[in-house]
């Protein structure tokens, strides 16, 4: 019989799918927080980086078309039609995922970036990013320290 075992590591939840024969092993993995974190982080980083690479590839292809337009290869009408094909709405990701996604990107880049830059990399509305990151003290968000 298959069941889902959910284990709470502080605020992190790890769900392990298991059948009765594998329950013991599943628990062994679930309670090993170090292994679980490594596993979850690797999985999550992979997802974020795939998302960023896909975004950047889309940007690269769009920028080729944009440069072609600026070089006079397309008329404005032609370019607007092409740009229409590249346009995407902002992605909708929940705040926890977003904060972790931003952390992966910042970690990889190793520099402080604005919410506008992060927005380009993750295709997220900068305000949504700022709201998600607001609760974290490290955030390089747009809001300044309000002195008044």
């Amino acid at each position: 019989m298959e069941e889902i075992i959910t284990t709470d590591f502080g605020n992190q939840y790890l769900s392990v799918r298991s059948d009765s024969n594998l329950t013991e092993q599943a628990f062994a993995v679930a309670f090993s927080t170090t292994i679980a974190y490594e596993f979850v982080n690797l999985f999550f980083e992979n997802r974020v980086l795939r998302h960023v690479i896909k975004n950047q590839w889309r940007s690269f292809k769009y920028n080729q078309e944009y440069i072609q337009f600026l070089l006079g290869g397309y008329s404005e009408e032609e370019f607007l039609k092409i740009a229409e094909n590249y346009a995407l709405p902002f992605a909708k990701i929940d705040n926890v995922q977003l904060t972790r996604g931003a952390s992966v990107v910042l970690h990889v880049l190793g520099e402080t970036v604005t919410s506008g830059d992060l927005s380009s990399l993750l295709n997220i509305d900068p305000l949504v990013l700022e709201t998600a990151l607001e609760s974290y003290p490290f955030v390089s968000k747009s809001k300044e320290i309000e002195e008044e």
Partner: protein
Amino acid sequence: MTNRNSAPAAIEGSKIQLKGQDIKPGAYPIKIKERTMFPVNTYKQATGTILEESNPKTFILRPYSMLDKNDGISGKKLWGLSSNPLRNLTIGGLGRTSSHPGQDQTLNGNFCYLEIVEGWRGLPPLKHPKEELFTQFSLS
């Protein structure tokens, strides 16, 4: 006429004058409410002023957006959207300083938007994200 230079501040209009020293197009276009919008980033310093108000004069993107003609924002770094792609920046006109010739561009179309992502006083004195982030996440 209101001018703001600290975040959060934004302007929305159908024509916005953007002047600065490092105006750059953003990544691929963004679809917002069936509109195709072209992102624009400015680094170093920039000022945006509404030349024409939106019609109807209501905010589309941010509830705190200023909407009146001649309302403006200025800051170190701005992020925005334009209905038309950036082209033919004017050099040596507006935004000029003793050390930089200045760049300016008029964003126009049905809807244009600019907001401050880093104001004049800069960002808060942060701990380095690279060190801080994973501490946060691995301990939470």
